[in-house]
């Protein structure tokens, strides 16, 4: 692949005290690609994508996002870059004191002017909600929604700024198989419509098979193995084999 990566992580290290979570971890994400990160619970997958969005500061290593070295950006520049990178939190992180409309409006506070918000916010909210099939929930509170619906609203909230990349933190974990399947299908249709690239953290084999183009195994804090799903199934390395047998 000679295309330029839109996210490139090189030799990333991160420890919490004695706990060395990431050790020289590297990855590249290319345009229109869905990259899956597989790894045991507690292996540092969330830490990794939180480093990419600068919610966590790594100890060393370089992170390039859309040609910016994020460690060198001022706060304001970083905030603008964040508009291009959607983040779907594992817990959805919907603001539970706000309605669905207010939730979707929130990211626009920073990135749209007051006039833009007055004129275009309502239609942007409508469109984002239609993308996830939940236009009728616009005046509801997050507590009134089911788990799957909340995941969709959270996705709509990241879509409203039309990001170029979406980082999904375990998007189907905790959902029933049917809802999980619907979310995976939704992720695919979003990618088709907006031509986004994505990093997807997941344990869900169905989700991985449906959405992933390429898989990276995060083991012992490293990019331990990398390839398509079929490639990795053939991999003879005991740690990789162990992992797939455990799934």
């Amino acid at each position, binding site marked *: 692949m000679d295309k330029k990566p839109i996210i490139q992580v090189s030799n990333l290290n991160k420890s919490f005290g004695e706990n060395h979570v990431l050790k020289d971890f590297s990855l590249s994400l290319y345009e229109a690609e869905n990259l899956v990160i597989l790894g045991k619970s507690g292996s540092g997958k969330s830490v990794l994508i*939180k480093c990419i969005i600068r*919610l966590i500061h790594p100890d060393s290593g370089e992170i390039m996002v859309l040609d910016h070295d994020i460690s060198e950006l001022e706060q304001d520049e970083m905030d603008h870059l964040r508009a291009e990178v959607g983040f779907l939190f594992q817990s959805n*992180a919907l*603001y*539970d004191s706000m309605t669905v409309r207010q939730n979707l409006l*929130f990211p626009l*506070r920073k990135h749209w002017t007051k006039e833009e918000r007055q004129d275009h916010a309502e239609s942007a909210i409508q469109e984002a909600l239609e993308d996830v099939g939940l236009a009728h929930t616009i005046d509801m509170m997050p507590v009134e929604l089911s788990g799957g619906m909340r995941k969709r609203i959270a996705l709509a909230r990241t879509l409203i700024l039309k990001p170029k990349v979406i980082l999904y933190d375990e998007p189907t974990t905790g959902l029933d198989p049917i809802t999980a399947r619907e979310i995976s299908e939704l992720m695919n249709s979003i990618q088709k419509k907006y031509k986004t690239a994505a990093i997807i953290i997941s344990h869900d084999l169905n989700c991985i098979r449906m959405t992933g183009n390429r898989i990276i195994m995060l083991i012992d804090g490293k990019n331990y193995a990398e390839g398509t799903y079929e490639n990795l199934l053939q991999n003879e390395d005991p740690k990789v084999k162990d992992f797939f047998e455990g799934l």
Partner: protein
Amino acid sequence: MGLAKKIENPFFKEVGEISRFTARFFREATKPKQEWDEFINQCYWIGFKALTLVGITAFIMGLVLTIQSRPTLVEFGAESLLPSMVSVSLVREISPVITALICAGKIGSGIGAELGSMRVTEQIDAMEVSGTNPFKYLVVTRVLAATVMVPVLSSLAIAIGLYGGFLGVNMKGDVSWTLYWHQAYNALIYGDFLPSIIKTIFFGFAIGIVGCYKGYYSQKGTEGVGKSATTAVIVASLMVFILDLIAVQVADILGLT
């Protein structure tokens, strides 16, 4: 070794952390672009949450204080000083402290639980990712709202407490409405009001800071949220008493007593 151990002491560590949090509050609060809408929301919310309890408690306090003080004053033949005594106690001590304690319980724990649950459900991270400074949006607004609203509530508590006092005075004696208010007012001087207001500003600030600090750095998990709310109440109440002690010393030095 001895010193290092002392610094490791959780109490000193907590004092250090809260001081750092307070310093950060001033840094962020002075940055441009204030979140006025959220500040106004928080003021309403604090007033709404605490007003009933503050009002009822202040009325009862005024009433009870009057009933309890009467025998002593009668003994000295100073029964006519009852309205003056009630108003001075209410303004100087009872209203500020009772209001602050109620707010520590309701507002401190409310902020601690709210921010704590926002922390553990990643809502604070989500704000940051969407380009809104969560410290400014959540912490600065709440601390300022508490700083403004506790003095307001305390002033209301003084007024309501005086009505309680009027009822108390008239349960056994007979003091006319105008005479009561006349006496209650005349007993008060500038030197009573000013320290009372300044004191409550500090109480409100402390309650806001402690509630926000506990919530903002809440431990993961649902028990973390409960812990944030409870410790916020305990620490904030303790701070109220410590500040009260400092306030009385300062007022004394400045000759305001």
